[in-house]
């Protein structure tokens, strides 16, 4: 943790525990309320469809694409990966017994290792524990496996917890929240600048998607990528777009950010994988 994070997290925790600052539950109410006011006719479930919930023209195109979803072959690939045993005979299911419908269990705070554990992280650690090489985090095989798991988890409601018996969990949440609202990069944007302040408006011809619902639908087949990509790949791309140096996928910064962002979508149904422009 760097100095800024230490200061921010320390201040926040002191303030939350003394009731001076909003708790995560207060944050959640304010965050979701903001979007419900901005888009009063859009349900929580629909918000998981991003811009296609608020842009009728885009939605028509998207619905046409969804008739033959570009991510379908990857779901099949991922299914094969899930079923195939490791060289030592074990399976992913031995590490993650609730799978494949386990989307709602991630991300979560892991007390033992003292960090936020995301699904991609858990999958690679399962591989390593069983003598397999970890897979790259941004795209490719791991993304296909995630597509299968996301598909099987559709409909589950997001329910990220911040356990009260470990103050480090709240710290990670506060660090993710700080990341979200801090201006960064040469262009001086925070995530909120586009996805809260200007959501629904157009940057050039592109409508800015609302932050509420952004965590529900990963991995994403993005036409721009011509392939499936993960949430952390998108974090990196966004950071580069505002001319900030990107952090590595599954870095502590991005895992804490995912923790905050997913918590903010608590109550929304998972609906991955998804197709986007």
């Amino acid at each position, binding site marked *: 943790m760097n100095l800024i*994070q230490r200061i921010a997290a320390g201040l*926040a925790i002191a303030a939350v525990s003394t009731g001076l600052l909003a708790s995560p539950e207060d944050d959640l109410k304010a965050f979701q309320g903001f979007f419900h006011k901005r888009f009063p006719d859009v349900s929580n479930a629909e918000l998981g469809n991003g811009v296609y919930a608020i842009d009728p023209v885009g939605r028509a195109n998207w619905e046409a694409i969804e008739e033959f979803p570009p991510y379908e072959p990857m779901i099949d690939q991922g299914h094969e990966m899930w079923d195939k045993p490791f060289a030592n005979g074990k399976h992913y299911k031995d590490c993650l017994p609730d799978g494949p419908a386990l989307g709602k269990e991630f991300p979560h705070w892991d007390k033992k290792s003292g960090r936020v554990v995301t699904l991609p992280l858990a999958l690679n650690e399962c591989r390593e524990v069983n003598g397999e090489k970890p897979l790259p985090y941004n795209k490719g095989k791991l993304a296909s496996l995630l597509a299968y798991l996301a598909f099987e988890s559709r409909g589950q409601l997001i329910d990220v917890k911040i356990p009260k018996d470990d103050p480090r969990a709240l710290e990670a949440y506060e660090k993710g929240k700080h*990341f979200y609202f801090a201006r960064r990069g*040469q262009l001086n944007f925070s995530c909120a600048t586009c996805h809260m302040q200007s959501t629904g408006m157009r940057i050039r011809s592109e409508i800015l998607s609302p932050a509420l619902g952004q965590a529900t639908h990963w991995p994403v087949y993005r036409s721009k990528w011509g392939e499936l990509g993960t949430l952390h790949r998108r974090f990196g791309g966004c950071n580069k777009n505002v001319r900030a140096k990107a*952090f590595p996928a599954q870095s502590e910064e991005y895992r804490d950010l995912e923790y905050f962002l997913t918590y903010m979508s608590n109550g929304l149904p998972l609906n991955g994988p998804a197709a986007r422009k």
Partner: protein
Amino acid sequence: MRGVMLTITLMLVGCATTALAGQPEYQKALADAKAAQKKAASVDGEWRDVGKLIKQAEAAAAKKEYDTALKLADEAKAQGELGYAQAMSQKNAGFPSYVK
């Protein structure tokens, strides 16, 4: 003849020293740029182009284009410092006024 040879020699030496005159300034600017990059990174505030500018400065210096190398290193340093200042200014970042 000797006068001409002397003039030519002096000119050549003069040119060489002018070309190398930028080198110590560049070296300092490069060191400053790298320090600024590190400082920005230490607070998660590094900007996208700082690393690239440093590489470009080093490439120009390798070709002995010290004027260009100096400009690039100075730009890298400036952006490094701005990234650090930005991160420090965002210490209290949280829910903006337009939410709630």
